[in-house]
């Protein structure tokens, strides 16, 4: 962890342990918060978790400014410095290989959402002329059934279209990236958006290609916003998904 000196981090008790050619940013924590039982209790307190996780993230983002970094999951705890050191000895080769791999690269996340109704209206307007004509030519009972049938067909078309769209967007984005991953879709209760998430993807990008990547996101946004897609692009993140 070159660049992060002790003098830069006096306020939070953060310091470096250098061992086996690796540097680990650590901070001492007390039994009252992180002892096994107390930790278990604290981990049921969302506000506690939030405050600690933000500190964790902040430290990693600071290190990221000047060096390749392997972000550890929260909470990662060792009882003694010696335990940590022997852990480093054990995994040294893996860590060094991984750090070399991540050097000069950034993680970016792209989530795509779909305004279902908008897409549905767009699709329903066009490709269903035959059935529309049949509906207007039919008596009310039959028209009712045909309308139901049309609704099913439109829904199918929406699913198909969504698959095609997210695939196409993902392919364009992955062109500029070194590595990628598709994560699980998050439900509306978590995203708090009225649109449905249709792609949750992360990309590992060589720094010199980040500009092109963001440009592609803008292009996709311009192309697909009228059709009901929304793009949410965040970064640069520490390489959580690729460590």
């Amino acid at each position, binding site marked *: 962890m070159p660049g992060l000196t002790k003098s830069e981090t006096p306020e939070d008790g953060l310091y470096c342990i250098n061992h086996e050619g690796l540097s680990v940013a650590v901070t001492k924590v007390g039994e009252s918060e992180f002892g*096994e039982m107390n930790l278990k209790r604290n981990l049921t307190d969302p506000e506690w978790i939030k405050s600690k996780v933000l500190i964790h993230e902040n430290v990693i983002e600071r290190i990221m400014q000047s060096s390749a970094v392997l972000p550890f999951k929260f909470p990662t705890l060792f009882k003694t410095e010696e335990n940590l050191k022997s852990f480093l000895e054990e995994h040294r080769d893996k860590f060094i290989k991984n750090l070399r791999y991540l050097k000069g690269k950034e993680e970016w*996340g792209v989530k795509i959402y779909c305004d279902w109704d908008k897409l549905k209206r767009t699709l329903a307007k066009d490709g269903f002329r035959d059935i529309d004509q049949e509906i207007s030519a039919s008596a009310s009972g039959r028209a009712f059934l045909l309308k139901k049938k049309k609704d099913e067909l439109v829904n199918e078309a929406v699913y198909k279209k969504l698959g095609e769209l997210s695939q196409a967007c993902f392919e364009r984005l992955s062109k500029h990236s070194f590595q990628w991953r598709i994560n699980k879709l998050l439900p509306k209760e*978590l995203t708090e958006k009225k649109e449905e998430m249709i792609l949750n993807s992360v990309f590992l990008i060589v720094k010199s290609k980040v500009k092109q990547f963001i440009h592609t996101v803008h292009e996709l946004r311009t192309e697909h916003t009228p059709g009901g897609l929304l793009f949410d692009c965040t970064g640069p993140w520490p390489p959580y*998904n690729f*460590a």
Partner: protein
Amino acid sequence: MTAPDPGLHIILREQMNDLLLKQKEVTVLEILDRVLDKGVVISGDIVISVAEVDLIYLGLRVFLSSVETMERVRGAAL
């Protein structure tokens, strides 16, 4: 030229605050999702993993919205 309607100004500011709050919230979810769920998993001395990121986030949101309500109530009392 007429001065901007102060009422409108307040509404706009409130909307902006809402927007900022929203964006921040999304970021908290993104951060929780990464820090608790991704990243290097090791066998440290104490291995406790956080059960459900989704549940924590939902819990946090309930907490935050109740804080917001409290602040609003306090604001109304003034």
